[in-house]
């Protein structure tokens, strides 16, 4: 595997392997010295065309814990805004010796383009492209579900038979797409809930069950409920009439939270809109995995960088 562009490309074996390596990586967190020498001498570039503090910090942290040299390049306010193209920027970074480029871009397919246009040879890690995919987010979500459900017995396991409900703006969510492909590859049953205006075309062809009522979806006694962020900038596009109505119909209200099973996880990729898609009662409850997701993100990204940049030779040694 040279690049990580999409969870759709991952087979079960590879996905479980990434989660297992992430688990190994998590053990370094308990050490006095948290660094591994694995990527010493390698250069990882974080190329962010979109603001995303938490994803950027997570990748930075992961690369540094593997002892890579890290360059973070925020394209906002850079030469890119003066007209330098994606191609020029990528070629410049490669000329500076980038072994891997972690790219976040507001346009779907940007990571795919960097990987396959023939401009550069570096490994590409998709850190979120438009409304397409965000594969490491899905991997960290899967890791979090597996870790909480199986604890010390998680290694080598997939998510067969688990029910995961994903709620909200599926249409614009790269997190939802990556999760749908990955969780189903891992054997989970995925349920989507949203108003029809926020469901993508062709949803009937996806390997999921679609609900238009959150209460119906919750009655399936899910193992995890994943709430998606509602982007207030989309409000003017009339996908739904008001925040109040959205919160009432599709929000994880305090009342709904009380109806969840005792082991049901409450997940959110952050940042949360409290009171809109999720109530504080739900977000702060013991069921919430929100902070675990952040911690686990570093381990999963360490695993991905390890696999892609250190390569097979490292694994064999």
């Amino acid at each position, binding site marked *: 595997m040279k690049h990580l562009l999409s969870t759709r490309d991952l087979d079960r074996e590879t996905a479980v392997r990434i989660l297992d390596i992430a688990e190994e990586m998590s053990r370094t967190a308990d050490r006095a010295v948290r660094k591994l020498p694995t990527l010493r001498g390698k250069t990882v570039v974080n190329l962010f065309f979109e603001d995303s503090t938490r994803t950027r910090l997570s990748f930075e942290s992961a690369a540094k814990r593997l002892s890579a040299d890290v360059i973070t390049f925020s394209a906002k306010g850079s030469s890119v805004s003066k007209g330098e193209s994606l191609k020029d920027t990528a070629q410049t970074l490669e000329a500076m010796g980038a072994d891997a480029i972690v790219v976040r871009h507001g346009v779907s*397919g940007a990571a795919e383009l960097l990987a396959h246009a023939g401009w550069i040879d570096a490994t590409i890690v998709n850190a979120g492209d438009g409304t397409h995919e965000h594969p490491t987010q899905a991997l960290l979500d899967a890791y979090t579900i597996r870790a909480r459900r199986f604890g010390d017995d998680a290694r080598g396991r997939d998510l067969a038979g688990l029910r995961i409900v994903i709620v909200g703006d599926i249409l614009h969510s790269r997190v939802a797409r990556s999760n749908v492909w990955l969780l189903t590859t891992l054997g989970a049953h995925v349920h989507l809930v949203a108003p029809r205006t926020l469901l993508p075309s062709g949803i009937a062809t996806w390997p999921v069950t679609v609900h238009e009522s959150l209460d119906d979806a919750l009655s399936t006694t899910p193992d995890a409920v994943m709430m998606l962020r509602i982007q207030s900038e989309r409000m003017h596009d009339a996908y739904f009439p008001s925040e109040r109505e959205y919160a009432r119909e599709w929000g994880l209200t305090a009342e709904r939270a009380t109806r969840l099973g005792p082991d049901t996880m409450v997940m959110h990729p952050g940042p949360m809109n409290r009171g809109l898609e999720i109530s504080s009662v739900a977000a702060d409850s013991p069921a919430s995995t929100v902070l675990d997701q952040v911690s686990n993100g570093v381990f999963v990204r360490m695993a991905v960088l390890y696999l892609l940049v250190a390569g097979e030779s490292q694994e064999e040694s």
Partner: protein
Amino acid sequence: MVTSILVRAAAMLGGGREDLRIRDGEIASRGSLTPERGETVIDADGLVALPGLVDLHTHLREPGFEASETVLTGTRAAAAGGFTAVHAMANTSPVADTAGVVEQVARLGDEHGYATVRPIGAVTVGLAGERLAEIGAMARSRAAVRVFSDDGLCVADPLLMRRALEYVATFGGVIAQHAQEPRLTEGAQMNEGALSGELGLAGWPAVAEEAIIARDVLLAEHVGARLHICHVSTAGSVDIVRWAKARGISVTAEVTPHHLLLTEELARGYDARFKVNPPLRRDEDVHALRAALADGTIDIVATDHAPHPSEAKECAWAEAAFGMVGLESALSVVQHAMIESGMLDWADIARVLSEAPASIGRLDGYDAPLAIGAPAHVTLVDPTAARTWSTSDLRGRSSNTPFAGRVLPGRVMATIHAGALTVSDGEVVDAAELGTKEGD
């Protein structure tokens, strides 16, 4: 200056092999002919003689976007593809919305001599969709504009569209509508469907095209005017045009070569060469378009030749320009999609790529093709040639072809425009040989 050409043993449509003498820009004689002294002789044994091809939908980009294409480079590409006349779209800079601009474009075409250039006039001032452009002035100018279009943009305002249809009839013109409901396609990047949902690209619903076509055929019927639909791309659009024709409404329609062959699946790799407006659709749409061209519901093939510099395509999908070049490859693509599938024969090709587009554009000289005394616009094709298409087969200024790497049949071996060879032995002749101004 060569004034006499003898085409020997060409396969004539609807008949056997014949010789064809071209003199002083006209078809002088046909039959079994003997070469004369000083005459250029073309051995056309094995070649099919078609009337010169006519494109009703070309973007020549001059004035304003000469980095993409010019009248010279665009007409060279046209000649390479077997075209002897092109209609140049109005979305230039300045927009072709005045007599001055359309006359400039026509004059450049005349000077270069590779093809007759018929400018298309804008329907609205600056393509802004607010006020009618001076349609009368453009119609009465030396460019004699007969086709009016805001192509690239839809005339979305129904009242303005009604007025345009009514007004243009006074001047024997036609409105060529780019059918795209703007609100339903805001931010749209590819065909709306399962694939757009999966790829996370904003979808372009078929209904956005079909709703405008339905509206406009009813408007054309209401005011008794002539309407032409640009680049029809969906099965639903075909149904509406079929219904309108059955009802007696004066509507014609075009399909592009790429919509006869390519599907939305090509968007999967985010290669922006396949990004086009209207977008590539589903397999069932391609089948419906082919059937409609075969049964006459769709009248013509038009290239929508849309050149762009490499930087406009070597970028992320959503940031890339819409459009593909198509003049050089059109005939091969149509041969592949329609002749090899048995849906059309060469006589049909002459109809959909020459006679009918000339008729819609009110272009003189194409109503009695290859008849003695008719203007000598001739295209000689080797239908047995095949090649793996590449950008080196292009003769225009841009290289954004979606067909690179595909094996396509047929090759234009000679193009004769108004009695002058613009393509000889499969290569575009240079300007000095053509005896016209280079000007590039």
